[in-house]
């Protein structure tokens, strides 16, 4: 049953109702506070930006379609009406331009939240992200700090082809001077975005288009306007003792489903939601592997030089003698994302791939 639901959900994006069906079995396994409120990731992001703009007049939003159009994905809905065109700025089509301008504004003391319609378009601005933002504090010896947030959808959506589907977590996370965050749930989205906006360093905030419409339970604490999650701490979404599965963003949902399937076969999987790609919470990952002795890392992006590669290296370096099995890496196929739905599905990790890898790590199958 889980397999069928999983497949259907992946093919066409999530619908709230199918999600709730899947969720019901999992709520008891989660450690959410006993709040009965739910919130979509979209609303979580919107409320986070709204609250931070309200608290600090230096925060402003810029990007294509963020104002009158209410945001290409409606993340900035209602903000123009509330804060006016000077603080919710619709930019001309030039990523290089508005990124450079955002960085310049940050140099001069404002706190921009720059939206990329997708991080694929950030390629046109990557020089400003790396050379004007990430390295500035260091190169200027602390004289220029850049309290900027770059946010937008990252990774694959559904049927959008190669130039709209790449995951940039590994690219940005390799750069010293940047912080890279990847939320999964609504609570992650709120807490991490607020932390990012308040952070004095440049932060790359990788969202996921398919998660925007997903609803998650949310605690009273998380709804408070001062709520904030620490940057650099991973979250153990599900505790287990046989195998550690680490992942981020949309794949967390898949890993949790895989854990359910594995539980049926007697394998207790611990699922870690990384939340922060840079700095990577090596301590939590290694502590978990030392407990379970097996590692399966999952990501949507390309395999070579990916986030999984870094985690495997870290675990092999620090917890080698605790490993009972070779480390497993599940990543996207090493091809530009194909468009056809069947090919796209094959190019991305699925729940079955994670289940198989975990079983391999437990020597239950080849």
């Amino acid at each position: 049953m889980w397999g069928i639901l999983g497949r259907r959900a992946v093919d066409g994006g999530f619908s709230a109702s199918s999600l709730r069906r899947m969720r019901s079995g999992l709520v008891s396994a989660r450690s959410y506070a006993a709040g009965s409120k739910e919130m979509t990731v979209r609303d979580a992001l919107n409320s986070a930006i709204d609250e931070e703009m309200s608290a600090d007049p230096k925060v402003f939003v810029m990007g294509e379609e963020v104002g009158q159009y209410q945001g290409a994905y409606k993340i900035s809905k209602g903000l123009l009406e509330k804060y006016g065109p000077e603080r919710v700025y619709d930019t001309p089509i030039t990523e290089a331009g508005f990124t450079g301008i955002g960085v310049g504004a940050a140099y001069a003391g404002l706190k921009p939240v720059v939206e990329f319609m997708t991080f694929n378009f950030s390629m046109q601005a990557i020089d400003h992200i790396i050379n004007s933002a990430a390295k500035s504090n260091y190169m200027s010896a602390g004289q220029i700090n850049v309290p900027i947030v770059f946010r937008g959808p990252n990774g694959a959506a559904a049927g959008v082809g190669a130039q709209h589907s790449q995951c940039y977590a590994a690219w940005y996370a390799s750069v010293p001077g940047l912080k890279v965050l990847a939320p999964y749930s609504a609570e992650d989205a709120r807490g991490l975005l607020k932390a990012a906006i308040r952070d004095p360093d440049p932060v790359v905030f990788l969202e996921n288009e398919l998660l925007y419409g997903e609803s998650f339970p949310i605690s009273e604490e998380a709804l408070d306007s001062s709520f904030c999650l620490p940057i650099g701490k991973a979250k153990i979404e599900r505790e287990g003792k046989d195998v550690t599965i680490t992942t981020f963003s949309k794949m967390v949902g898949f890993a949790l489903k895989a854990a359910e399937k594995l539980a049926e076969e007697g394998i207790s999987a611990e699922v870690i939601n990384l939340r922060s790609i840079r700095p990577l919470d090596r301590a939590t990952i290694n502590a978990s592997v030392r407990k379970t002795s097996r590692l399966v890392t999952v990501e949507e992006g390309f395999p070579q030089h990916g986030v999984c590669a870094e985690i495997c290296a870290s675990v092999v370096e620090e917890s080698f003698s605790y490993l009972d099995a070779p480390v497993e890496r599940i990543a996207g196929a090493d091809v530009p994302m194909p468009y056809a739905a069947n090919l796209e599905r094959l190019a991305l990790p699925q729940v079955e791939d994670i289940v198989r890898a975990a079983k391999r790590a437990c020597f239950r199958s080849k």
Partner: protein
Amino acid sequence: MAQHLKSSSKSILLNILRHNIGFSSPSHASRHLRHNLPHGPLSTRLAPNLITRYCNTMVDTLSSIGSHEDTNSQVMDFPGGKVAFTPEIHFISESNEERVPCYRVLDDNGQQLTNSQFVPVSKEIAVKMYSDMVTLQMMDNIFYEAQRQGRLSFYATAFGEEAINIASAAALSPDDVIFPQYREPGVLLWRGFTLQEFANQCFGNKSDYGKGRQMPVHYGSNKLNYFTVSATIATQLPNAVGAAYSLKMDGKDACAVTFFGDGGSSEGDFHAALNFAAVMEAPVLFICRNNGWAISTPTSDQFRSDGVVVKGRAYGIRSIRVDGNDALAMYSAVHEAREMAIRERRPILIEALTYRVGHHSTSDDSTRYRSADEIEWWNKARNPLSRFRTWVESNGWWSDETESDLRSRIKKEMLEAIRVAEKTEKPNLNHMFSDVYDVPPLNLREQELLVRQAIKSHPLDYPSDVPL
């Protein structure tokens, strides 16, 4: 004007361009402007468009001459304003018949031109300007020699561009934020950066405000509102626009000022920055040092437009072309531009024509791609220092004696600065790891510990002059 328009073999637009050169009418500009010129080519748009974003001033003029027989009263309401129709098939020429003229106050020999308009300069300012130009030239000379001797790894001079450097700085206020390329140390010098501070950065010692992290000439000073030099070309342009936006939102009486070369105008960031600055109505000065060369690329290979000044209009930006080797002209142009930028909240483009007398940097030998005669000619005939000196002396504010006093003092100071900078310790090891983030993260603290442990157990493998 009507006369010219009737000879309609030219396009209407071409004629309007020709008659609208320069950017401010005498009556409209600041009260400082002194002129003996009753009329002339300096009359143009009088009413800045403060309110309507979309008012196309060019089109206003077009429809106001609707009495012309070709524009038969039919206009189209188009996003941006009304556009007149014409039954004649006219392509706007790729270039004007005449190039945009270049504003100057002093002739090649330093004599004030009789019709010149300029902002008067007090004795104090003039003497400081000239002294700083001399200081800049000498500083460049001595650092260049130091690099040749192997004492510095790298250096880039600003020979020939001293007037641009110093005069523009003199016309700005200390609150104006500067986004340099890398050939504008004179702006720092004017604002009070000492020769010792320059030397410290070049030698990367522990007194360097950059903590030894960058190559020589990558100066920066928070205190003096001069953003640390970033070597990537033209990236500072959009940054400046963002900073200008920030100044506007804070309501400050200041603007952002950014410098770039003729080569920098080819970058995509130039387009994005100028376009954006106009749309955002940001108070920013774009100062282009058109010095004829981008390393070995002459301007003829860089663009086919009439220099950089004509590009301003394409973005809806008021622009001017100035003789960059004329300190008084530079001073006036920047002074007026700054006022307009802040008062009217608009960007201004200034193209300063000059010549890069020195090599691109110490890694370049420019005699390989240009004749030594050309360099010599510009150095002698158009030298910014000698021209300004003549004018300063003609006012009785300078003499041979003050010149030689200044030069010997600077030389002594420079040699002392280098001596001290060379001997000063290099930055501490912990500065390799600090400032990557606001607060050093765990992984970097661990790495630093590992490095220290390694140095302790293998001291001979590490340089002895890095203080721990």
